[in-house]
C-alpha cells in the first residue's frame, strides 16, 4: 500500500504523511460529530486541569464514526505495509483531539515535545513508572491545517533513532527519572496538511501538538496502533525499535 519512498521516509525520519488517505464523506461525518460534541456536550471527563483540550469528545472515543476512520479505510492496510500483514490490532479507541486557539494577542511558544508512557504523577502514570505500550501514532486531520503554529501534530524528525541510541547507552531505566532531553539534530516539524491526511509516526518519536495561534480549532483524531505482540515485546522496543516493523525492517537494516 505504501511506496518504497514512503517507507524509506518513515525509516529515516520516523514519520510519514499520506495525503487524502480517508474519504471525504467519512471525514465530514467525523468532523460533524466532533463539532456537535464541542458545542452540545462540551467539556467533561478526564483531567481538566492538566489536559484541557483533551477532555472534549470523551463520548466519541469508541464511536464507530471515529474508529471507522481507521478500521474501514485503507489505514490498517497501510499500517500493515509498515508493521507486517496481520500484525496490526483493530482500533477500539481513538481520540478526537480539538486544539483551541490561544487567546488573541498571545504569542505562541516554541513547540515542546515528549515521549509517551513516561509517568510524571499528573499524566495518569505515577512518577518513576514508564511503559512502551504501543507501536505507532496514527493521526488523521479532520480539517485543513495549512500553516504552522496552528495546533499541528509536531514531530522531531530522526528522534526515534536518537532515542534508540540513547537508551542503548543509558538503558531505558533512565526513564524513571522522567523525560530525557538528549540533543536532537533536527528542529521540529509542525505538520501541515488537509482534511483527510494521515500521519504515521514511530512510537519513539518525540512529538507534541504545537500552540495554536490560528483563528481555527485544530481538529484531529489520534490513535496509538498496537502490534499484536506489543505486550510481549514490551520495553525491549525502546532499543530494538524495528522489532514490530516487519514491512520496513529490511530498509532499516540497510540504512544502519
Amino acid at each position, binding site marked *: 500500500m505504501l511506496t518504497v519512498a514512503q517507507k524509506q521516509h518513515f525509516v529515516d525520519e520516523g514519520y510519514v504523511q499520506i495525503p487524502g488517505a480517508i474519504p471525504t464523506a467519512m*471525514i*465530514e*461525518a467525523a*468532523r*460533524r*460529530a466532533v*463539532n*456537535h460534541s*464541542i*458545542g*452540545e456536550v*462540551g*467539556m467533561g471527563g478526564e483531567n481538566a486541569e492538566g489536559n*484541557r*483540550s483533551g477532555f*472534549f469528545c470523551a463520548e466519541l472515543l469508541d464511536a464507530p*464514526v471515529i474508529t471507522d476512520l481507521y478500521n474501514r479505510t485503507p489505514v490498517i492496510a497501510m499500517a500493515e505495509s509498515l508493521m507486517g500483514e496481520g500484525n496490526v490490532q483493530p482500533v477500539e479507541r481513538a481520540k478526537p483531539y*480539538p486544539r*483551541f*486557539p*490561544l*487567546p*488573541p494577542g498571545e504569542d505562541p511558544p516554541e513547540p515542546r515535545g515528549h515521549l509517551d508512557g513516561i509517568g510524571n504523577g499528573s499524566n495518569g502514570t505515577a512518577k518513576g513508572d514508564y511503559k512502551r505500550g504501543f507501536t505507532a501514532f496514527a493521526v488523521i486531520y479532520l480539517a485543513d491545517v495549512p500553516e504552522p503554529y496552528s495546533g499541528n501534530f509536531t514531530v522531531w524528525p530522526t528522534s526515534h533513532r536518537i532515542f534508540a541510541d540513547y537508551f542503548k547507552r543509558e538503558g531505558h531505566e533512565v526513564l524513571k527519572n522522567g523525560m530525557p532531553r538528549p540533543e536532537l539534530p533536527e528542529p521540529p516539524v509542525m505538520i501541515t496538511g488537509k482534511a483527510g491526511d494521515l500521519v504515521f509516526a514511530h512510537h519513539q518519536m518525540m512529538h507534541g501538538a504545537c500552540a495554536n495561534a*490560528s*483563528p*481555527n*480549532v485544530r481538529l484531529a483524531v489520534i490513535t496509538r496502533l498496537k502490534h499484536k505482540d506489543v505486550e510481549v515485546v514490551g520495553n525491549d522496543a525502546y532499543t530494538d525499535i524495528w522489532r514490530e516493523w516487519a514491512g520496513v525492517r529490511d530498509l532499516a537494516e540497510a540504512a544502519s
Partner: protein
Amino acid sequence: MLSNEQKQEFYEQGYLKIPGAVPPSMVDEARKAMNYSIGAVGQTGEDAEAFKVAAYCHELRGEPLMTDLFNRTGVMDAAECLIGKGKVLPCENVQMAMRFPTILDDDVPEPRGHLDGLGNGKNGMAKVDFPHPAVQVTGKAGDAVIAHHQMVHTGGPNASPDIRYAAITRLRHVDCEANGIEVYTDIWREWDGVRDLGITV
C-alpha cells in the same frame, strides 16, 4: 455607501447581504477569540437550557474585538445609508452566535422563524403563513447581513460538518425608545435612507 439597487433590495426583501463588509483580519481575530472561549471558557451564564447557543462567549459581548466588527467597519456606514446619517446608536453589545452541527443521524427540520421581543415565557411566537419560503442566507466570512427588525428570522438547522460562526447585534435608531411599538405598523419610521423608496413604489 450602498447603491440604490441595494437599498431597493432591502426595501423590498427586508434584508440585504453586503459581501466583504468586514476585513478578513478583523474576522479572523474575532473567530480566534470565539474559538478560544469555546475551548477555555466553555458554556457559562444565562439560561443554558433555553438559550444553549447563546450560552457561549458571554465574556466577549462588550469587547471592542466584537463591537468593532460593527462600529469600525463598513457595517455602520451601510446601516447609516439605510437608517440615516447620525441616526444609528453605536453597537455596545454583540451576541456570539455559534450554531453547532446537529447529531449525525438526526433528520434536518425545516427552518422555523420568529420575531424578536414577543414574550411567551420561552421567547417564541404564533405560527403564521408566509408567501415566500425561508431563505437560508449563504455567504463568506466577512459578509454582513442587515435585516429589518420586523423580519421573521432564525438560525437555520446546521447539518454541515462545521460550526456556524456569526456575530449578531441589534442596531438601534437614536429614537428607538421614543418610537417604541408604533414601528410594528409604521415600519419605515426609523429608515430615513429608504423611506422615499416607499413613496415611489
